[in-house]
């Protein structure tokens, strides 16, 4: 089986500083993969490199097509939705406008309208607040909105950067349940970057561990969860 996303020898730079040192990993279609690592390990950089938002070398192939040299917006058009750290909410616009923006690359206005209704069914709280300025939503609601906005693209692959950040534990559980459902029912391949390793490993079927810009471990989520080192470093028991 060929991978949907294939990353080889990925190196990324912030000015003179090298943040990724030859990263290699792959995502299979329909999988839910998590990328674990401490602060500063290069998790966010990896996601940003996939969307060409940071200078990088190496090879990134999406469905057999090399995408390193494409612009961010044309990578998005291939069906890669990126929910960035801090959620990327259009804070001055209404909830509904945020969803409209998620579908900016699509032309099928009727299907967009029905997708918005579908999102409201997924996330009823967004329907209640659809005319409200998105910046006034709570953190959890904004994260729901960010996921919904990404889904409006009808993505093939969804990248999530620390979706649990700053959220109450109960809300994180809800959110992860929804992500699992999206992965199973809408057949969206998901790569989620997390510091909350325990939850991420429960949810994912595959996991990579990244340390100072290199992949140091990979395997099935259950294997990784049972690994002695991972338990000590990331799960804390």
């Amino acid at each position, binding site marked *: 089986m060929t991978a949907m996303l294939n990353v080889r020898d990925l190196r990324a730079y912030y000015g003179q500083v090298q943040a990724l040192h030859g990263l290699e990993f792959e995502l299979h279609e329909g999988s839910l993969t998590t990328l674990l690592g401490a602060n500063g390990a290069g998790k966010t950089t990896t996601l940003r490199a996939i969307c060409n938002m940071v200078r990088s070398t190496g090879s990134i192939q999406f469905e057999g097509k090399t995408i390193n040299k494409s612009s961010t917006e044309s990578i*998005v058009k291939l069906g890669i939705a990126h929910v960035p750290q801090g959620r990327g909410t259009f*804070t001055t616009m209404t909830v509904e406008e945020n969803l409209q923006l998620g579908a*900016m690359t699509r032309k099928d206005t009727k299907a967009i309208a029905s997708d918005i209704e579908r999102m409201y069914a997924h996330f009823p709280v967004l329907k209640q607040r659809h005319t409200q300025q998105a910046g006034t939503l709570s953190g959890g609601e904004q994260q729901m909105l960010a996921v919904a906005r990404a889904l409006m693209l009808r993505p093939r692959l969804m990248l999530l950067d620390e979706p649990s950040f700053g959220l109450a534990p109960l809300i994180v559980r809800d959110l992860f349940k929804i992500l699992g459902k999206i992965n199973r029912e809408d057949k969206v391949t998901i790569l989620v970057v997390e510091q909350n390793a325990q939850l991420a490993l429960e949810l994912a079927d595959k996991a990579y561990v990244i340390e100072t810009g290199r992949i140091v471990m990979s395997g099935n989520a259950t294997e990784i969860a049972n690994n002695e080192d991972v338990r000590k470093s990331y799960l804390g028991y």
Partner: protein
Amino acid sequence: MDLFLNQILAGIATGAIYACMALAVVMIYQAIDHLNFAQGEMAMFSTFVAWQLMQWGVPYWGAFVLTLAFSFAGGVIIERVLFKPLGNAPVLTHVAGFIALFAIINSVAGLTWDFTIKQFPSPFGSSPFLGSQLISTHQAGMIGVTIVLLILLFLFFQYTRIGLAMRAAASQPESARLVGINTSWMIALGWGMAAAIGSIAGMLIAPVVFLEPNMMGGVLIYGFAAAVLGGLSSPFGAVVGGFLVGVFENLAGTYIPGVGNELKLPIALALIVTVLVVKPTGLFGRTIVKRV
């Protein structure tokens, strides 16, 4: 009493021009976070193009539409050639760019059409408006055109997808790229629209101040004052600011002893400084609500 009313109405009429200039300034400010000092010269050049077309026998409204198209294309080209390469360069680099643009456009206009004053026709004529002595048809036309323009812009930004994309690109460029918006072209589009709006201001004010390469100098300063007063982040504020500045300018010139015509300009500058000190966001610039 008639004098007072007359001054207010005349103020609203010139305020309409300031409103257009302020609108153009705000559009570019929203897109690239810099004030375009060459906005007035761009408008002046467009007005010369309209004049030239009419000299060649094109009827007024034909020349008007052609000039809008020319200005739009010109704005896009200026952004692509000069300001896109500057990208995230420091403020001073941009200022230098704007001043260069100012000087280039001014000289090219002078070279092509020389510096003598030219008559520019008004499509509305200059008879008393509805038989009243308070305001002329041209002044009423200036107000009418500005209001129509404002409504069209509002509809464009609020109800079209491209308008939504432009707002998104201006407020959160990175997020905008992540939903697939080509932010770079949105900026170019903003420049094109700003140039076209400026050209309307130029064509409307030219019958009043006469056409010559330096005609927009004072107008642009009032436009800046209007934009600052209304709030640089608010197109609506820019228009309200324009009308307020127009009225204020006229009343001050008439009623404050010693101001007269000569000291009107410092009043605009004083207004800019006062607003920046007392309320830097302007009247309508919004403080963004944010919860984290």
